[in-house]
């Protein structure tokens, strides 16, 4: 059986989640590999959530937020922008290819870009192959459930 990557997406409520919604309502097709976790802001995405997703079996993690300057909370996405390069350095030192983590800015009107990004990222992770963390290996839905429950107030959708 061919390898189907397990991808966890953290989507900000105001832009990227709405962008994903637009892609859906516009019937744009993209691979079903990504399971999204809706967060109120990309600034809510703690590096710990990303590590947690990898720990539980994700092969790739994508974080999507509003374009810089468009944050519903003024500067939440800048916090995300600053955390990402440091998180990449950390996962790299833990032996996880930094390209398994991706940050994208996707606005509410960019359904087509959402479709394109998810398709491209899924193909890229498929090519990279599975991430061999051996301890835990959950299904995508379970990963999202478990990560979301660690996050506290957020539900996975």
């Amino acid at each position, binding site marked *: 059986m061919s390898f189907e990557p397990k991808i966890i997406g953290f989507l900000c409520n105001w832009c990227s989640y709405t962008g994903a919604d637009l892609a859906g309502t516009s019937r744009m097709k993209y691979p079903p590999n990504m399971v999204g976790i809706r967060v109120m802001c990309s600034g809510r995405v*703690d*590096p*710990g959530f990303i590590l947690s997703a990898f*720990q539980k079996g994700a092969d790739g993690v994508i974080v999507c937020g509003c374009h810089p300057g468009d944050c519903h909370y003024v500067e939440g996405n800048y916090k995300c*922008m*600053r*955390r990402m*390069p440091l998180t990449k350095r*950390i996962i790299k030192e833990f032996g996880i290819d930094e390209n398994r983590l991706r940050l994208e800015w996707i606005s509410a009107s960019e359904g087509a870009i959402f479709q394109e990004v998810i398709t491209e990222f899924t193909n890229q992770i498929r090519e990279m192959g599975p991430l061999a963390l051996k301890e835990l290996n959950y299904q995508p839905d379970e990963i999202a459930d478990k990560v979301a429950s660690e996050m506290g107030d957020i539900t996975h959708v």
Partner: protein
Amino acid sequence: MSKPKLAIYWAASCGGCDIAILDIEDKILNVVDFFDVVFWPCAMDFKYDDVRKMEDKSITLTLFNGAIRSSENLEIAELLRQKSVLLCAFGSCASEGCIPALANLYDKKSIMDYAYKESPSTSNTENIYPQTQTIVPEGTLTLPELWNTVRSLPQVVDVDYVIPGCPPQSDQILSVVLAVIDILQNGKELPPKGTVLGSNEKSCCDECERKKDVKKIKKFVRPFEIVPDPDVCLLEQGIICLGPATRGGCGAKCVSAGVPCRGCYGLPSNIKDQGAKMASALASVIDSDDPEEIEKIINTIVDPVGTFYRFSMADSMLRRKQI
């Protein structure tokens, strides 16, 4: 009536925890008055066989310091669990891996190669490496096996309490020991299993008396590169201080002496990964909105994993480098 029995053991540790126990000074006499010390390899000559001969659950309290990284560490951890009523992970190594767990960024082979072959002070032309078994005319000699991954005590056996710190501060050790004596003497109720003893729930920053303001960082520096202002938050001066992601209880001794918190009291109870939380706190106060400049500022952090996970690697989410 016979005295309650106390055991103190070191696994993969430096011995600092044992010294910290002795640092309770003359109060150590109260301890030996109340307890019968039945096992303390660092201080007195005991043999593992002495422990094997004890009855199960005959040791009232075992303070276990040191991480688990060899077959010997695990064997004694299991043995002491079996013989003890209360097993306490004592110090950072036992509770979260500490410095020995930084070995999790490497593997056994590269560690062995460096220690026995490649380090500048080593001359090993005959390629002699330690073996778990060596046959000599008199019989077979054995050594414990070293593992790839360092683990914490709670990852291998059931642990009743945790006392954090590298080492736990002596005043905290004393208060815990006196509390245990009080509980045992007066038949009081023990704290719930899993309680972290000798520490606070709030972070180290909460105990730090330095003046704290809005944090905006343009460049990270190492402590020797600047002369820090004695009254202002070290993090605000660009020095990486792990106070925000570290449990309080030490009395903020390092920061009051001008040395940044290194995180030895471990993660506060409401977070799951000390390093990730520190990365989160640190990165978000970088004073730039330009991706390139951010990258540049982040590159001024020397060794992020070794810094953020200096004490908590074994207990972190990813636990080790993937090999």
